């Protein structure tokens, strides 16, 4: 499972393979240079001591040492720069991929997953993937190169010493995959606890007014402290595992060193040459391989993060895209034929037999009590959900056969929960029409009855809205969202309770100008009552999952 997930992550990074490979190659060079440095110094001095003079091998070793004194630091610095740059590039790709997937798979919002939790996933999990490359793959490749180099060099001194020293070092290479599953469990618990901690912080902050109104601050703080304690406990378990993993790595490195010594003690004078080089190679390799046990933890952490990312990203899309999309229709008359829909199999159906017609330029008022499913119709028309039975036709074509994008290009919607982003008013409006000029923005603001409010702001259209439009009153924010919907160059406008949050005069004033504001487009007006100024061409009342024609 972990292997598949990590392979899939590597697949996402394929576009960056040049960067990633370059980093690994520089890392191998830097590590080998480090090993050579210590081994040559040790060998030079030892051989000198053996022969009692600075000649032959001793001189050769010490001469070779000189360039390495410069190569080693330079290559190490380069390694760190290249590997980090490669990682950031790869991670940026992952982040965008994930965002796109969620837009495709969870277009209706995040609901039960919770925004705080998702944010944690997105930022922390994507970032944790850096461990896969920086702390697992790169040190792994470098360590493998060291073990191979040690085995080959000692092979010249004798097969016995080669096996004795290289075998424990090779075993150390197996540590990351061996330690990973256990570390994965521990890391999974940490991530779980971190998500819970974030939820415990985000949820009361999102509903801060309600928390304060209920004097629930002590309870929110207690919940946060409890989540913090759970997190600390899981982190402790993870640290304990890491400590034992590190001990296993040290044990193997020391075994190689003592194997070289033991070989010399047992082998007599003939074995001394092999012992010297074996001993210093083992010492240097021990330093190079010290990061391997940590690689297991990094592998595990990356695996757990990858799993959670893919879990969210693999949510099946609510409405599958048609395999062979129909050609976009010219007209935009709407028609519902025997639509049946329930949000879940165990929930009451919202529509049992919904039929209606909306000719081009028509204005349909859809009335009904709250919870009757008026907003659900918008979700169906916008392909955020698909009817279980029946068809919805746009210009005579079943929208199931049209790509969601094509449908949404024709139908714009002011939803009940239309959010403003923490960006300027202009940027918020241009979501609906990126090319719109300022005059068009003012026109939309005018039609939504909010132009006067914006006009007196010192920064005008450049005023930031704050998170969720927090800088504006509920009614002002609602009218900005309305202006955004009116700006959209769509043939059909769905206005879901456009008057909610507006004072009666403003609501009446807007609905009176509905006809000019929507400028000849088809309109579906969703409301629980009519004020009598809307002049709809058709009125439907939703009762028991059916639409009944009603008199104004």
């Amino acid at each position: 499972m972990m292997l598949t997930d990590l392979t899939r992550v590597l697949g996402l990074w394929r576009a960056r393979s040049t960067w990633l490979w370059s980093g690994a190659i520089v890392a191998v060079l830097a590590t080998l240079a480090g090993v050579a440095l210590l081994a040559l110094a040790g060998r030079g001095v030892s051989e000198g001591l053996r022969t009692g003079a600075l000649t032959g091998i001793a001189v050769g070793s010490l001469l070779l040492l000189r360039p390495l004194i410069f190569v080693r630091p330079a290559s190490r610095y380069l390694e760190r720069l290249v590997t980090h740059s490669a990682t950031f590039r790869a991670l940026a790709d992952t982040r965008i991929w994930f965002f796109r997937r969620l837009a495709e798979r969870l277009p209706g919002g995040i609901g039960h997953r919770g925004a705080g939790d998702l944010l944690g996933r997105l930022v922390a999990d994507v970032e944790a993937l850096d461990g896969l490359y920086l702390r697992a793959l790169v040190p792994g490749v470098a360590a493998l190169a060291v073990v191979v180099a040690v085995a080959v060099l000692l092979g010249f001194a004798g097969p016995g010493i080669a096996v004795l020293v290289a075998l424990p070092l090779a075993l150390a290479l197996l540590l990351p995959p061996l330690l990973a599953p256990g570390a994965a469990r521990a890391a999974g618990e940490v991530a779980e606890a971190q998500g819970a901690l974030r939820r415990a912080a985000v949820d009361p902050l999102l509903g801060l007014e309600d928390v304060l109104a209920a004097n629930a601050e002590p309870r929110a703080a207690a919940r946060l402290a409890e989540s913090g304690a759970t997190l600390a406990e899981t982190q402790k378990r993870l640290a304990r595992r890491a400590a034992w993993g590190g001990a296993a790595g040290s044990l193997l490195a020391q075994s190689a060193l003592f194997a070289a010594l033991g070989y010399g003690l047992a082998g007599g004078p003939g074995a001394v040459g092999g012992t010297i080089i074996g001993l210093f190679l083992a010492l240097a390799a021990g330093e190079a391989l010290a990061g391997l046990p940590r690689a297991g933890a990094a592998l595990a952490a990356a695996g757990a993060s990858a799993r959670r990312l893919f879990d969210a990203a693999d949510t099946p899309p609510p409405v599958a895209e048609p395999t062979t999309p129909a050609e976009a229709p010219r007209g935009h008359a709407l028609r519902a034929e025997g639509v049946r829909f329930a949000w879940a199999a165990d929930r009451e159906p919202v529509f049992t037999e919904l039929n209606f017609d909306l000719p081009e330029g028509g204005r349909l008022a859809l009335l009904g009590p709250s919870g009757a499913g008026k907003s659900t119709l918008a979700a169906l028309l916008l392909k955020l959900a698909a009817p279980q039975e029946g068809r919805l036709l746009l210009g005579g074509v079943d929208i199931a056969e049209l790509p969601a994008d094509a449908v949404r290009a024709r139908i714009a919607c002011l939803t009940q929960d239309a959010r403003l982003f923490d960006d300027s008013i202009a940027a918020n409006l241009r979501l609906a029409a990126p090319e719109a000029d300022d005059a068009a923005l003012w026109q939309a603001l005018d039609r939504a009855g909010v132009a006067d409010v914006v006009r007196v702001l010192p920064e005008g259209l450049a005023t930031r809205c704050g998170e969720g439009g927090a800088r504006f009153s509920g009614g002002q924010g609602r009218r900005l969202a309305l202006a955004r919907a009116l700006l959209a160059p769509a043939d059909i406008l769905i206005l879901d309770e456009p008057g909610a949050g507006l004072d009666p005069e403003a609501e009446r004033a807007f609905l009176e100008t509905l006809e000019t504001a929507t400028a000849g487009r088809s309109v579906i007006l969703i409301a629980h009552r009519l004020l009598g100024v809307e002049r709809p061409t058709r009125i439907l009342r939703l009762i028991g999952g059916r639409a009944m024609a009603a008199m104004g």
Partner: protein
Amino acid sequence: MSKPPPAEAASARALLSATARQGRSRLARPILLGLASIACGLAQAWFIAHLLAALLGHGSAGWSEFFAAASLALLSIALGVAQERAQAAAGAAARADLRRRAFDRLLEAGPADDRPVGERSGLVVDRIEALDGYFSRWLPAAVLAAAGPLLIACVVAFEDPLSGLILFVAGAMVPVGMAVTGIGAALASRQQFDALQALSGRFLDRMRGLPQLVLFRRQEAEAQALGQAADELRRRTMKVLRVAFLSGLTLEVIAAAVLGCLAWRHGNLLVGGHPDPAAALFCLLMVPGFFAPLRAFSAAYHERMAANGAAAALAPLLAAPDSEPGLQLAEIPPTVVVTFEQVGLTYDPARGPALTDLSFRVMPGEALVLAGPSGSGKSSVLRLLMGFCRPDGGRIALNGRDATALRPEELRRLSSYVGQKAHLFRDSIRANIAMARPEASEAEIEAAARAAHVTDFASSLPEGLDTMIGEGGLGLSGGQAQRVAIARAFLRNRPLVLLDEPTAHLDPATEGELLDSLRRLCAGRTAIIATHSSALRARFGRVLELEKGRAGLPRMAGE
């Protein structure tokens, strides 16, 4: 590169050192264990040097030295494990304390702190977690990086004075090199944190509005904007790292130079026949051990920079002066008379005042409807009574006493409140109602649910009142969510009722059902209701028209 204000950096340092002082005993344990492990390494290297010298034909040593060295190796490994475990425990207590204090401050500030939720939650989650490395890795590593190499250099000097001197000089150069390269890195680290924070804030904002992006087909454009933001983050981070890695480079240069010097020193000694071969080997064998604490320090150096950045962001929050104590309520009075005398309120001078010279009085059993166009200051009146903000002028009195003398949370104990956008927490419907008064009995909760007509829709849900509802209330319509919020007000049962557009999202039929319950909620209590609804105005007699924060003429409904 912009410099953080020195005062800010100083307060960050003060925060870190104050916290470290508090946990001193816990922080000392990993350091002592680390020193013991280094001592073991020294002894082990001494035995191995003598063994190797014997193999090379100088002196005598055998299997007994071999086993002594091996036992020391095992002991050193065991000490290392103990050290790591002690380190992990060191930071946990410090973080828990800081997190509690930071979160208390955020709750205290309430809606007045208008930073995005992602940024504020980042303070108590990511920033606090970023401090962990400071206590559990950087502090022990810093002490060991000074004490460990010093110990080794002294022992080596005892064997061969010049080699000891080489190590000593190298050891002294490492912190100098790091300090020179580290200063720039610390500055850049803050910028990187700010970029990361901005990316988080942007993500939460865009994720919460994902449906809007999808409906306006802007998801692709936003993905690209996101890519640019990530690119920006990478550029900034690489700028940090180019400097930060210089401290690592310094260390590598010094380590390579030490090996070169030692090889040169003992190579030269060879010419005249080496006086002490075992000492020569001991010096070389100790080189990795000498640099290990320095490497650990170098690796942990980033932890300190990250912690400094985090502490700089946390310090203003934690260092803010304590809110003025304010009075506590001895008990909740059975009735409340609310009096506003010439009250003025301004959020932002650029936008003009929200309330000007507003005066009114509401008696127990009376309901005052605040009417007027959006932005006229209706909600501001309620926010003042909730203690979310304080008046700039005039006087608010409750039963004749100054309301601002009370602590905000004490002021809130007097009232039941339903805001404009009620938040449903990730929990069951029952728990969402019960939060208004946790000590309430099951029967009371169900009575409140019935009174607010929550039971009407909850009974058709598979798990009734125990149905889980998500953040923002998934599965509940706007009207249903508002009913849950109204049920909270019923359950809370306080003398003052504050309602902000309680029926804004309800259709006339549902509103009608609720009107009677709202009347019952207000009966015998003091009620202030901000609303556009004509039905509400008709049902509650007294209306105060607000126009740009000023009171119009009071009038009765229907006039």
